[in-house]
Each structure stands twice: as C-alpha cells, then as structure tokens.
C-alpha cells in the first residue's frame, strides 16, 4: 500500500460506511435477498458495507440449509462472494443465536459472534444504517 492510499484511508471520517441489519429468516420473505443486493452493489462501488444479523436474521447464516428443497433459488450461496466484494465485516448477535438454540456453525467463514454491547458498538462505527 502506498503512502497516498494510506492517507486517503486515514482521512475518511471515523464513522463511515453502511451497516445493513438483517432481521428476517431467509426463506419466507425477500428481505434477505434484497439486503444482499444492496450490499453487493455497495461492494462493487468500493463503498464500505458491513452486515449485521440479529433476531430471525441469524437463520440466514446457519450451515446446511438448502432452499432448493422448497423450490427457492438459494441466494445464501452468494454469501461466499463477500470476500470478492471486500465485504469483510459480518457480525451476528450472540443472544439471538442462544435464544434460538443455534450453535455457531455458519455456511461462510469469518463471521464474528458479538455480545449485545459489542454488536451495538460495531453498529455505531457506521455512518448509515438500513434494516431489512
């Protein structure tokens, strides 16, 4: 990384980028897919975007799901493209997992399980928030 690039990054305001909170389960509404489309668009414009999973949204991350069994094109598979789009910050609410008796086995890597306080602090590091 050159010095100029480092300076550009450093000059960005501290609270920047978009946080997307996913609050819906994957297979009954289109919210998860609609949120994903927004995230990938931000990624392709090289804008910082982080994904938060809370409430029933945590079901989007659970391993071994298969939408094809209910004739749904499985948009969850696209989550593996996050790396390619430089979407690195993926946070899940630990309390939401515990409430639903889910263990921390996800279908993508580098998911960060956070306590409510950490989750709140991570949200706070962003300039804008959308929730689906």
């Amino acid at each position: 990384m050159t010095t100029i690039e480092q300076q550009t990054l450093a000059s960005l305001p501290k609270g920047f980028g978009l946080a997307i909170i996913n609050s819906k389960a994957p297979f009954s509404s289109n919210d998860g897919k609609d949120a994903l489309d927004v995230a990938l668009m931000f990624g392709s414009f090289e804008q910082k975007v982080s994904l938060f999973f809370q409430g029933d949204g945590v079901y989007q991350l659970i391993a071994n799901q298969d939408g094809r069994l209910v004739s749904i094109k499985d948009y969850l598979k696209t989550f593996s493209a996050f790396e390619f789009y430089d979407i690195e910050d993926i946070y899940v609410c630990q309390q939401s997992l515990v409430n639903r008796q889910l263990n921390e086995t996800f279908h993508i890597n580098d998911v960060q399980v956070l306590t409510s306080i950490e989750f709140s602090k991570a949200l706070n590091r962003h300039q804008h928030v959308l929730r689906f």
Partner: protein
Amino acid sequence: MSTLHLVRQSAFATNDFTQCLSVLDHQDTVVLMDDGCYNLKHSLMDSLLKRVDGTININIISSHAQARAIETMAKVSHIDMADVVALTFNHNKVITWQ
C-alpha cells in the same frame, strides 16, 4: 369440532403462534410449515408438548424443516403436503396462522 392449525410464522419474530396456542383444543392438530418450523426450538413448544398429554398431534413438513437445517424431534411427525391435504379433510376446519 376439531381444527387443523397451519402455523407459518416464527414465534421468535411474531406472536401468532402464541395466539394459536391460546385457542388450541384437544383433538386439534398442528402443522408447522414455512417459518413456523423454527418453533420446534421455541420454549412455547416445550410447554405445548408437556400440555398435550398425547391428544394434540404435532407435525412438521419435512422439506420445509430440512431446507432450514432444522433437526427432527421424536414427538413431532414428519409429513408432506399430501398429508396436509388429508388432514384438511380429517378435521372440521382449518385455521392458518400467518
């Protein structure tokens, strides 16, 4: 007058399942489908399984549960949509909780 209850929503997100349980009668049958499958892990299910003393029949649609990576449970029967159709006519009426 028995009722077939189709439960389509997650009890972790909405209170529809609570409303369903409040009108549930013995002889009734519950089918968990769509996001209702998640209710298998909800505390309301524990109390339902305790309460039923075997008269209320609880079912889950296999493909809906499997798509969501939900583990099975001994006391809950796995059925398919043809079974739901049969249940429709084995009961006097159907209420959909969605």
